[in-house]
């Protein structure tokens, strides 16, 4: 091993030097990467001299250990699923030392790669992820799970305790009693405002492209902000730094291909996915059957270059689009287009071996247009949200046990929603708010072994001139070798609000909350125990409570056209609520048989003065019981997976009486049903089993897998919603059902 970089400690800002305290000797720093592809390995543990000094890598695989006295030290770098790296380094008084460690994947004695190697839940990582409700899901873990059509991250996350789905056709995340709008979804640290395709059926995240998925179900740390509930942080691959490589797949829904390789002192990656439903639909149309034309696609690209020893530049982009056309003739047609675009340029700079900086300029846009002509009457809804963000983070590795992180974020938004009917403007809402945020966060390990993450985030939002200081705290206390007690909490604000249409995410749009309504805020607390009797098993129990205030909900009763629209016109406002529950999670990480069992006992309530006379009600996604069993088994070239889900039935509003009224504008009598208390009844419980069967093979010298997946194996017709027929009073209510059994086939390959 040879040091890649040596040099005197660069100038460090005075405050951080003061904070660091002791006189520096030398710093051992470096990057930890996978040997196959050079992708950075986050949360790898570096131990010097048998653990006397140590540290963990950050999300870019970087670590720094300060104040090493001169001498020769054994160094061990470990990461679950990878062979430990061992060497000896020599540190002198004068020079810092930087190393690049490439870890090789472990293999089982079966000669099969351990898919679980990508599972980031090592004991070391658990210490790092001091937060409760933290989940990391690796691509290979996802691949083994049965899916509907093709692997999907958001749908897989729905199988974890505390996370629910709205329906079989929704990839939206309802986390710990919060709606999808309360979860921030980031792709390479940039928000995606509507990360779904096919009306929510699939997420925009392409399985081959994603490197890491991290989810904070609640009480997320101070380096994130902007939402009341949870954060989903998805990182795409940088690209293979070692060789040209590729992955792809064909399912019944789409085809996808990802290519990557090294370039100079960096790497690149491009990937695309597209449905091929449109030629099929066109053929059906040609046979005389009226069906719409539809397709979606995703494009991902990323490239990075190491610019000298201390600088790295990364650029990335995402483009996704859905397009649905339906021409019915007779001057009647529909066209719906929506999609996200995002781009980032990130500069990573080492001010010194112990001071790591990341600066980013980014833009994200979501746009949807629904245009229709109904018998020559044109209707158009157009909405767009754009943001431009400048962001900077500094990470100071003060000592082996303390890391100080601080950062800022400036975001300018442009939001516009327009509605035209019969060539007349009905809505034209345009806002250009600005959000300024800054945070400071200390990660420290006390002599008692207690791991504390203490943070403070401040924000200023231009709409309503709103400021907030939001403390965040997480504590992890070891209670012996295998048991940990964790607790955490924090305060949160949300300034943008999603206006969503039931059952159709393509028309969703975001608006900023102005000073006509109270600000939306929450505080959260969680506590739990984690028990890891061995490396193989993990058992966790967590309790959580979220208190929400200033909630808003779309006001369906607002007049259809309005100028000078304000938040109070769009929303029923000043709602309150809470979500509480207990989650149990038991996971087997290694071996032929792997998987988890999750259970959530939950209760969520909302209260609005304008709804149901101010009585609290359960949102539709409130679930008292939620059970998920996820298993996979590998035997030679074959593997299978089985998922079982059970959940309390969805809440709905029942009818309590029939009556009739003349509609005043037409003077015609209509038979009607009277709605009872909001969501005071329940549909039947939800349950289903999904199975998958895979076989590894070689195809044109490339590793490949063919798979068969069966969604809803016993074709349980789970209930979706109730329709009361008001026109025929003799008719029984109709319960609309969800998806029946759906088998799918596909193939995936890698070279």
């Amino acid at each position, binding site marked *: 091993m040879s040091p890649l970089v040596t040099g005197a400690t660069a100038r460090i800002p005075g405050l951080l030097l003061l904070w660091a305290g002791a006189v520096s000797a030398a710093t051992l720093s470096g990057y930890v990467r996978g040997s196959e592809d050079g992708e950075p390995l986050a949360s790898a543990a570096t131990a010097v001299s048998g653990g006397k000094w140590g540290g963990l890598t950050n999300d870019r695989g970087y670590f720094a250990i300060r104040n090493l006295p001169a001498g020769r030290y054994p160094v061990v770098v470990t990461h679950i699923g990878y062979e430990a790296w061992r060497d000896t380094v020599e540190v002198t008084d004068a020079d810092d030392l930087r190393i690049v460690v490439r870890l090789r994947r472990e293999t089982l004695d079966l000669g099969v790669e351990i898919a679980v190697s990508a599972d980031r839940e090592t004991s070391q990582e658990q210490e790092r992820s001091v937060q409760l409700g933290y989940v990391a899901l690796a691509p290979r873990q996802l691949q083994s799970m049965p899916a509907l059509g093709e692997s999907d991250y958001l749908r897989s996350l729905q199988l974890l305790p505390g996370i629910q789905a709205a329906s079989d056709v929704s990839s939206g995340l309802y986390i710990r009693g919060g709606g999808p709008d309360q979860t921030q979804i980031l792709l390479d640290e940039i928000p995606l405002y509507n990360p779904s395709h096919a009306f929510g059926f699939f997420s925009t995240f392409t399985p081959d492209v994603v490197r890491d998925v991290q989810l904070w179900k609640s009480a997320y740390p101070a380096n994130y902000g902007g939402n009341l509930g949870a954060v989903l942080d998805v990182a795409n691959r940088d690209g293979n730094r070692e060789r040209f490589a590729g992955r792809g797949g064909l399912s019944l829904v789409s085809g996808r291909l990802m290519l990557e390789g090294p370039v100079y002192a960096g790497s690149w990656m491009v990937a695309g996915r597209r449905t091929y439903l449109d030629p099929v639909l066109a053929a059906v149309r040609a046979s005389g059957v*009226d069906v719409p034309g539809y397709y979606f696609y995703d494009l991902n690209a990323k490239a990075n270059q190491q610019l000298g020893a201390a600088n790295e530049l990364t650029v990335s982009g995402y483009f996704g689009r859905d397009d649905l056309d339906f021409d*019915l003739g*007779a*001057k*009647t047609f529909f066209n719906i287009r929506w999609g996200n675009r995002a781009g980032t340029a990130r500069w990573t700079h080492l001010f010194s071996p112990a001071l790591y900086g990341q600066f980013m300029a980014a833009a994200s846009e979501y746009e949807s247009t629904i245009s229709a002509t*109904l*018998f*020559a*009457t044109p209707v158009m809804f157009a909405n767009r949200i754009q943001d431009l963000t400048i962001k900077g983070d500094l990470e100071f590795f003060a000592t082996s046990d303390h890391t100080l992180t601080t950062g800022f974020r400036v975001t300018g938004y442009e939001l516009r929603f327009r509605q035209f009917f*019969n*060539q*007349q403007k009905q809505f034209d809402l345009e806002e250009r708010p600005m959000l300024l945020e800054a945070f400071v966060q200390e990660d420290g390990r006390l002599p008692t072994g207690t791991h504390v993450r203490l943070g403070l985030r401040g924000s200023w939002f231009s709409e309503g001139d709103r400021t907030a200081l939001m403390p965040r705290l997480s504590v992890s206390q070891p209670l012996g070798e295998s048991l940990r007690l964790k607790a955490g909490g924090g305060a949160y604000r949300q300034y943008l609000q999603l206006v969503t249409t*039931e059952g*159709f995410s393509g028309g969703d749009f975001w608006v900023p909350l102005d000073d006509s309504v109270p600000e939306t805020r929450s505080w959260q607390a969680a506590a739990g125990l984690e028990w890891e009797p061995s490396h193989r098993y993990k058992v966790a129990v967590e309790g959580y409570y979220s208190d929400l205030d200033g909630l808003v909900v779309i006001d*369906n*009763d*607002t*007049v*259809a*056209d*309005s100028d000078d629209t304000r938040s109070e016109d769009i929303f029923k406002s000043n709602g309150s609520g809470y979500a509480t529950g207990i989650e149990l999670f038991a996971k087997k990480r290694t071996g032929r048989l792997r998987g988890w069992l999750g259970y959530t006992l939950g209760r969520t309530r909302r209260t609005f003065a304008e*709804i*149901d006379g101010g009585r609290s009600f359960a949102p539709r996604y409130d679930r008292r*019981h939620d*059970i998920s069993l996820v298993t996979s088994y590998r035997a030679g070239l074959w593997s299978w997976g089985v998922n079982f889900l*059970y959940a309390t039935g969805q809440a709905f*509003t*029942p*009818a*309590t*009486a*029939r*009556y*009739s*009224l*003349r*509609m*005043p*504008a*037409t003077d*015609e009598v209509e038979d*009607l049903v*009277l*709605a*009872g*208390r*909001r969501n005071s*009844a329940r549909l*039947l*419980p939800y*349950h289903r089993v999904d199975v998958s069967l895979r076989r590894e093979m070689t195809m044109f010298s490339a590793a490949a897998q063919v798979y068969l997946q069966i969604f809803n194996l016993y074709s349980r017709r789970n209930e*979706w*919603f*109730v*329709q009361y027929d*008001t026109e025929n*009073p*003799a008719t029984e*209510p109709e319960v*609309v059902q969800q998806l029946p059994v759906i088998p799918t086939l596909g193939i995936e390959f890698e070279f």
Partner: protein
Amino acid sequence: MTILRQFTFVLSAAVLGGCAAERQPGDLFGPHETGVPVVDGFLLVGQPLPDLFVRRSADPAEEYRLETVSVNDAEVILSTGVAEYHYQPDPDSAGRYLPPPGKPLVAPLTLYRLHVQLSGGDQVHGKTHTPAQLRIEEAVLLDDAELTPKRSLALFAEGGEVFIEPRNQIEYLDGILEVAFSPVSGTAAYQLAVFSLDLESEFIIDADFLEKDDSEDFERRGSSPPLEIADGRARLPWFAIAYAGRHVMHVYGLDANWYDLVRTMPEGEFFGGLAGDSFQRPLFRLQGGIGLFGSASVDSVGFVILPRP
């Protein structure tokens, strides 16, 4: 048996028990609200006092029959600050109450109060402030590309036979009919309605995607949701027209009660509507019962729809 096996057994039993749940009769209905007084009446400015209806709500799980829910022995009184009108039950129509003889006209910008006394002690109270009179000032047929007037239509206020006027003959899907009026004081919002007057006239939608029987789903009367129409210009959408022949388009200026009812009425036909968050109790603005006691001012324009050649 080990603890693990016991746990597995209990879990399996619980899950299978839950999975086996079946719906009981009536589970799709909430606690019944039968027998709630339902009042139905709306005043139109400048027109005679209207008939009013009194009924009671019925069991949601049973077939709804007007004869069983109608109330025929209520005391119904409509009053202003200076006059009181005692309604009488209509012997020929269950649940209908008739105004006193002479049928006084509904006055604009006036507060009307309703008092209904039912047997058993139930009382319903309501009040409405009538808007000012609404007048359509102009009706034009616009070119649908340029949005420039092609011709003006004759109005009822001009006194002619509007349905005979050549300029009021409109070819189906040709242009956009726009009416203009001055904003009306006391109005919460506006609502449009279109009536096809010739009940035997031809169904004129020629679309391949419609089956033969689909024409039965097209009503001869339809209305818009409440609209703000801040600029006093309202356009008739062509999808509101399904039949040839004489038509009347009404423009209503709504009082707060009428507006609240129609804007909060669940849209039963919408995707998921009656089970989702849009299924809610409308705002009735009545004390002691449900229904509508509201008012509006209205003006109309008449025209004839000609089939496309």
